[in-house]
């Protein structure tokens, strides 16, 4: 008998949504001692399925039909009180956002003890809490028990969340994108931890993710969801290597393969040369100690004409700060930023203006990078108009650019909120291209996008770069993406570039230990997506 069996589950969406049901006729099961990965893009209904199992659906999303049975009991017919006893005790859940899932005012130990207490085993909390913290490989459990959540890093908090979820030895653990908010190296540690605990205790795990790399890393079986339906289900090796459904095939084909091909070295003139750039943030200092963060130091690089240099690193490594130094969104204290030999750093706002035409930027968040109150046409035409081009001509060119980024020119008079994330990112790219730049800085341009959209945008960037002979500085945290698009990569750690070189060389023979660690942490590195 399966631990969890979901059959024919249909959950309605409120009227006026893009489809009548959030999930429709979804059936899957999880056995004790296995990990089922539910994988799908945003809006595919994977989280709704998990929340339905936990009885955590919001009021607006009623279950229309179907059955959920857990250890032989029908969960949908259980009362609120019976469900509450089951949650935490037999069913546990960990969430995506470790930064907000803990109560900031309670010590970590007390929060774990609380879980034990509400389910009637508070008496041995003092003994169990350090045990649990040790079980999730947190160093010095005694000290962590006494600390408040703000003292812990994202990865540590996620471990605490897992410790809480495991406190009562549940039979089923539901993990809703537990590693999405974490850096790759931390992600790998958490994945290993879940895998290890699962096999040690023989739990069933329902693991929700959007990343096929993570699936390859952890799953025993896979269920692929598209628009509220499960389109393919089967053993992990089967689905990953021989996908049947066209949607699964499309998703897997879109996964960046992470294999860097050797490219011809580029030996043209240098476009951009950074030397000795330093940016330090200082905080506090009125009373108490000053906090000094060296955001960027020892990060020299040369970017040659027609070349794409990837800046890779984890969050807080200073890669975005470095890119923002180049366009003066951040003002470094020291160093030279030579663009065709001219140092841009000391230039005033006015003196910078001519260079704005030559150096443009594409931003990370497609939802925040377009002015919500301005039409798409005006957004794209804005730059040239600012630089003195007549409005009519700029709008005409905006229309052409929309075609270039594969959007309908009819989009000119619409507002950003009418577009999807991928479409907005295309608009952002068109805005940058409207200035006819020579150097394009792309700050994580695909990290907020679903994998299939990500593949389209990357293909678009590659095509435009070739057609317009752009030089590109490409910032990303995803090594697979870097491998696909960059000629050279520079690996950043704590504000410094620790290794740089041709992409294929760095990937094949990493010199610096941190680079090696990063490469080892790529989820699913043991899996080569099949040629489809």
């Amino acid at each position, binding site marked *: 008998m399966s631990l969890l069996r979901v059959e024919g589950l249909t959950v309605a969406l409120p009227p006026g949504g893009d489809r009548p049901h959030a999930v429709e006729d979804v059936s899957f099961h999880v056995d004790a001692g296995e990990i089922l990965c539910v994988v799908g893009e945003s809006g595919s209904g994977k989280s709704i399925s998990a929340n339905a199992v936990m009885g955590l659906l919001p009021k607006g999303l009623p279950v229309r039909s179907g059955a959920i049975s857990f250890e032989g009991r029908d969960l949908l017919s259980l009362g609120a009180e019976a469900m509450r006893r089951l949650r935490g005790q037999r069913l546990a859940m960990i969430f995506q956002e470790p930064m907000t899932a803990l109560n900031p005012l309670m010590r970590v130990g007390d929060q774990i003890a609380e879980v034990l207490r509400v389910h009637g085993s508070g008496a041995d909390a003092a003994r169990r809490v350090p045990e649990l913290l040790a079980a999730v490989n947190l160093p010095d459990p005694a000290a962590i028990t006494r600390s408040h959540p703000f003292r812990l890093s994202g990865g540590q908090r996620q471990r605490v969340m897992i410790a809480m979820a495991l406190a009562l030895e549940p039979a089923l653990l539901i993990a809703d994108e537990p590693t999405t908010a974490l850096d790759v190296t931390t992600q790998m540690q958490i994945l290993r931890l879940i895998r290890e605990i699962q096999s040690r205790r023989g739990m069933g795990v329902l693991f929700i993710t959007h990343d096929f790399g993570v699936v390859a890393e952890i799953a025993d079986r896979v269920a692929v969801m598209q628009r509220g339906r499960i389109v393919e289900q089967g053993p992990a090796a089967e689905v990953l290597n021989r996908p049947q459904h066209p949607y699964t095939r499309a998703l897997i084909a879109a996964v960046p393969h992470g294999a860097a091909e050797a490219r011809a070295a580029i030996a043209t003139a240098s476009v951009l040369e950074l030397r000795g750039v330093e940016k330090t943030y200082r905080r506090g200092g009125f009373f108490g100690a000053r906090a000094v963060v060296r955001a960027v130091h020892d990060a020299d690089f040369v970017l040659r004409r027609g070349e794409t240099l990837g800046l890779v690193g984890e969050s807080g490594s200073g890669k975005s700060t470095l890119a923002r130094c180049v366009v003066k969104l951040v003002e470094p204290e020291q160093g030279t930023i030579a663009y065709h030999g001219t140092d841009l750093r000391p230039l005033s*706002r006015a003196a910078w203006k001519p260079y704005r*035409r030559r*150096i*443009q930027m594409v*931003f*990370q968040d497609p939802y925040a*990078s377009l*002015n*919500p109150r301005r039409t798409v046409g005006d957004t794209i035409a804005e*730059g040239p108009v600012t630089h003195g081009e007549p409005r009519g001509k700029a709008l005409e060119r905006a229309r052409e650019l929309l075609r270039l980024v594969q959007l309908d020119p009819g989009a000119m008079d619409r507002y950003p909120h009418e577009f999807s994330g991928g479409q907005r990112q295309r608009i952002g790219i068109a805005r940058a291209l409207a200035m006819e730049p020579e150097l394009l800085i792309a700050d994580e341009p695909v990290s907020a996008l679903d994998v299939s959209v990500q593949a389209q945008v990357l293909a678009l960037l590659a095509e435009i770069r070739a057609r317009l002979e752009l030089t590109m500085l490409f910032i990303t945290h995803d090594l697979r993406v870097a491998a696909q698009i960059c000629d050279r990569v520079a690996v950043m750690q704590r504000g410094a570039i620790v290794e740089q070189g041709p992409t294929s060389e760095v990937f094949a023979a990493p010199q610096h230990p941190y680079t090696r660690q990063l490469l080892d942490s790529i989820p699913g590195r043991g899996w080569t997506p099949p040629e489809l």
Partner: protein
Amino acid sequence: MRDFWRRFRRNKGAVVGLVILLLVVVLAATAPWLFPGSPWDMAGAPFSPPGEMGMLLGTDSLGRDVAAGIAHGARISLLVGAVSTVAALLVGVTLGAVAGYLGGFVDDAVMRFTEFFQTIPSFVLAILLVAIFTPSIGSVVFAIAIVSWPPVARVVRAEFLSLRGREFVQAAEVLGKSRLSIVLTDILPNALSPIVVLSSLMVASAILLESALSFLGLGDPNLMTWGFLIGSGRSVIRLAWWMSVFPGVAIFLTVLALNLVGEGLSDALNPRLARQRGGAA
């Protein structure tokens, strides 16, 4: 725009408020025709109760028509409310925008300046200003504007601080737009909703302030206002209740209407927040 109206209509209270407000505006606009002649003129016997001698709302101790006073007073109340709010918005939005956009030392300086005004009780400061500049409609508007801009500056600064770091503003910087045009065309339109909501509430509090000043005899002596009507009726309230009650009701309804409209505007401009509130109830 149609969307906005649909969301506004969902809040029933706001629609009621809007209707009341429109009635007050119509009353103010038609006062010279409804009640021709000066509201200061004697219209009947003193102390005649409402309904008698053809006086709808009675007369005051000098035989002046209370209804005429309310109608003409509506003009002054609305005028003072609107003009002083516009003046306060000009000062508040400018200072808030400068502080929020530039940040750093300028921000500190502007905010300390704002706090200087906020530490003085606003009504006392208003009385002081009117007393110094001698009561007239100009000085009343000036005083109200001076005491009501600090909250605007704070709200606008907070909005600017959060919008300044958004990527579309950074994109505008990278396009090479000037600071002024970034502030006016990128940040301000996105900070408009809280300003609109706040200003509807400011009109209400300006009307209250003006009434309170007039009540104390610090209003423009040549203009009939609601506060003056209440003030003149207060000594005979047990003899002639209508002299203070009707102007009081007028103030109450207008201020209530403005507050309701303000809430409706806030719901219509922040639909996500409104839905949450509706869901919780």
